[in-house]
């Protein structure tokens, strides 16, 4: 047993911190918050140079094949910087989907292009009627010759407006059975019948879209993974993405805690720094408790994706997603309270952390969903 970071992992984090401090200061985040596209070609180009598009992709396809543990070093730093843009959707959703379920020719078609920074992808999962149920997939994919025709609407699709393709989960057999009838498709966003519209969202740092599919024809080569058994793939894809999101939460919560704590040391009221009052000090201490707890659970969850048995990997992902995302919300909420009126102001950065926290909490299964997963795994 050795639950500590390696020199390599610490270096990955340090390098990412240096890059993001320089390239993604709060001013950039604010500009992108207001910007429809949500990122600049300039930073994207530099991220490509950092090899960040290649992190998960195996060497055969032009990548560097990092494991989940190394990747979360980068993601923690991205969360700390509240990095806007389509990194998460491309690398954590699209790449994971293709690596999990793709055949050789699909990998060949997409992965080198992503690795080189030429194309971007995302995942279309949620539907308007699904509520918080991650497993609600009713969009119809009708067999048509040897291909399929997709009809329906997906919402809360991250960064679809700047993606070239998406992985879409649809029903190829009717019913509610998750284990039967769901198929994943690779759909080019330029295909006839696909239209994308940006959603007006609470968190401007991560763009979400609605994607309409009107009689979109896909050929058999577009089927990703085993037909009708797509949930098996999807649940593993989601698990890794959930853990990735937890890393963002830990990095963001860490920074929100630092901002609040530093403020509590210099803001004087009633003749002393407010951090001297236990009412404030204890909230700061509780932030620390939740940040470090999140980090420990995150490490377990990340490690379990590559080293645990399937049940442990699933359990760890749900434990982490429920805990880390709520902790981030707690910490950023307390951050606003500690900063007082300052924290409530648009011009203060704390609001960016709260908004990202709330977005992350709801994304990829909310805490209630994941607690239900946990108890199901425990009692099955």
């Amino acid at each position, binding site marked *: 047993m050795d639950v500590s970071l390696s020199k390599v992992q610490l270096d990955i984090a340090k390098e990412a911190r240096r890059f993001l401090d320089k390239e993604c200061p709060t001013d950039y985040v604010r500009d992108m918050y207001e910007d429809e596209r949500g990122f600049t070609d300039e930073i994207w180009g530099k991220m490509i140079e950092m090899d960040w598009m290649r992190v998960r992709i195996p060497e055969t396809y032009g990548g560097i094949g990092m494991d989940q543990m190394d990747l979360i070093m980068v993601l923690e730093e991205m969360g700390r910087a509240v990095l806007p843009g389509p990194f998460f959707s491309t690398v954590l959703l699209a790449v994971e989907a293709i690596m999990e379920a793709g055949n050789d020719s699909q990998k060949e078609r997409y992965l080198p292009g992503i690795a080189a920074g030429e194309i971007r992808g995302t995942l279309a999962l949620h539907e308007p009627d699904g509520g918080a149920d991650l497993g609600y997939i009713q969009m119809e994919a009708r067999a048509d010759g040897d291909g399929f025709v997709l009809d329906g609407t997906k919402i809360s699709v991250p960064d679809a407006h700047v993606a070239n393709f998406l992985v879409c989960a649809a029903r190829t057999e009717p019913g509610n059975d998750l284990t039967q009838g769901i198929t994943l498709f690779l759909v080019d966003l330029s295909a006839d019948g696909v239209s994308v519209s940006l959603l007006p969202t609470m968190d401007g740092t991560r763009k979400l879209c609605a994607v309409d599919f009107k009689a979109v024809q896909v050929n058999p080569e577009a089927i990703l993974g085993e037909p009708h058994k797509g949930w098996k793939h999807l649940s593993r894809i989601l698990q890794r993405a959930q853990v990735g999101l937890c890393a963002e939460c830990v990095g963001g919560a860490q920074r929100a805690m630092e901002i609040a704590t530093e403020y509590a040391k210099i803001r004087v009221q009633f003749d002393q720094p407010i951090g001297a009052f236990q009412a404030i000090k204890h909230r700061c201490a509780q932030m620390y408790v939740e940040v470090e707890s999140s980090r420990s659970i995150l490490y377990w969850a990340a490690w379990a994706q590559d080293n645990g048995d399937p049940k442990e990997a699933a359990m760890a992902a749900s434990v982490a997603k*429920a805990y880390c995302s709520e902790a981030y919300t707690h910490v950023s909420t307390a951050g606003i309270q500690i900063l007082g009126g300052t924290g409530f102001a648009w011009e203060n950065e704390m609001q960016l952390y709260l908004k990202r926290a709330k977005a992350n909490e709801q994304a990829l299964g909310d805490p209630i969903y994941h607690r239900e997963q946990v108890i199901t795994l425990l*009692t099955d």
Partner: protein
Amino acid sequence: MDFRFSPEQEAFREEFVSWLEKNLPDDWNPSRYRNYDSQEEWGRVYREFQRRLFNSGYTAMHYPKKYGGQGKTLMEEVIVSQTLFSTCTELRIPGVVTHGMAVPTIFTCGNEEQKREFLPKILDGTHIWCQGFSEPDAGSDVANVSTRAVKQNGHYIINGQKVWTSFAHLADYCILLVRTDPTVARHKGLSYFLLDMKLPGVEVRPMTQITGEAEFSELFFDDVRVPVEMRVGEEGQGWQIAITTLMFERVLGDAIMGAAYETNIQKMIEMASQTKRSGRPVIHDPIFRQQLAQAYIEVMVLKYHGLRSLSNQLKSKIPGPEGSIGKLLWSEPNQRITEAAIGMQGPNSQIMGSSPWTIQDGYWQYSFLRSKGNTIEAGSSEILRNIIGERVLGLPKDVSRAKRK
């Protein structure tokens, strides 16, 4: 990064588990949370079982052989302790202060004579120790200790009172924090002693606590003569010794609680399958499913945070700042978990004694009440948050406290 124990450590665990199956006391019933009517009986069973562990080489795994330890690493100690606390917590409770505080204090800060005299007799089950820190006016403010020790002809004469002393009436010795110099700054006038409870002038008065048990006592000292040799460290080092040992032992304590609570979650799930609400087992009720899952999540936080702290301590030999939150990670969740557990029982939650309608021997009723002490004993949650705020995050002390020396 590797969360798995090595094959050797796993083999050791299996070996110890099978030893334990064969060596649990015959009269100990695992389905009861309290098997012994009197504290004396409980103490006797603890001593016998401790001797059995000692004779088979399963005590103080990480301490040198010459003091009665096994000369292995902290990992083996963690494995033994976790196995014991996930299987038979009751058999270990009378020794919690002994092993959690007295042993590390004597080992880390005691002199050679003290180590040779006291450690072997603790480890073979002969002696139980208690801890005399708290006083009526020194609760969270431990440095306010006013029990006095005055040096006189090779002895210290001790007068004063301690309170909330666990298992004092069973104890043979006491680790004692007293004031030797009232003229210097509060923290600097304290000294640390090893006190023989049989000395004339030591009086023990048991206190009944919220559970109805008398786990704690008041201790009175009336001209108790303690030889100078029983002082640990130098005069005036008492505070430092008390704090250091608490820090070092934290990681092991947190690992033990994590193991015990994992067992509790299983017990809770069993209960939720048997108790009903709305005509179906509680385990199918969405609200209780959420509570059970949250309980499990908090225990996983305790477990994996504990492994991370342990790992850092094994590497760096000193506890890191992340270790400072461990106690908060078991004491506060335990209150939430036991509250959720009795919440699952409906009106039966009021039935605690022997009755056909008592659920799981009344374990959760007892645990719910006992857990209220968790956030008070061994550093209250408020004190721990002060420590985290000030020592880890670097927040200033409040003006009134900063002025006082």
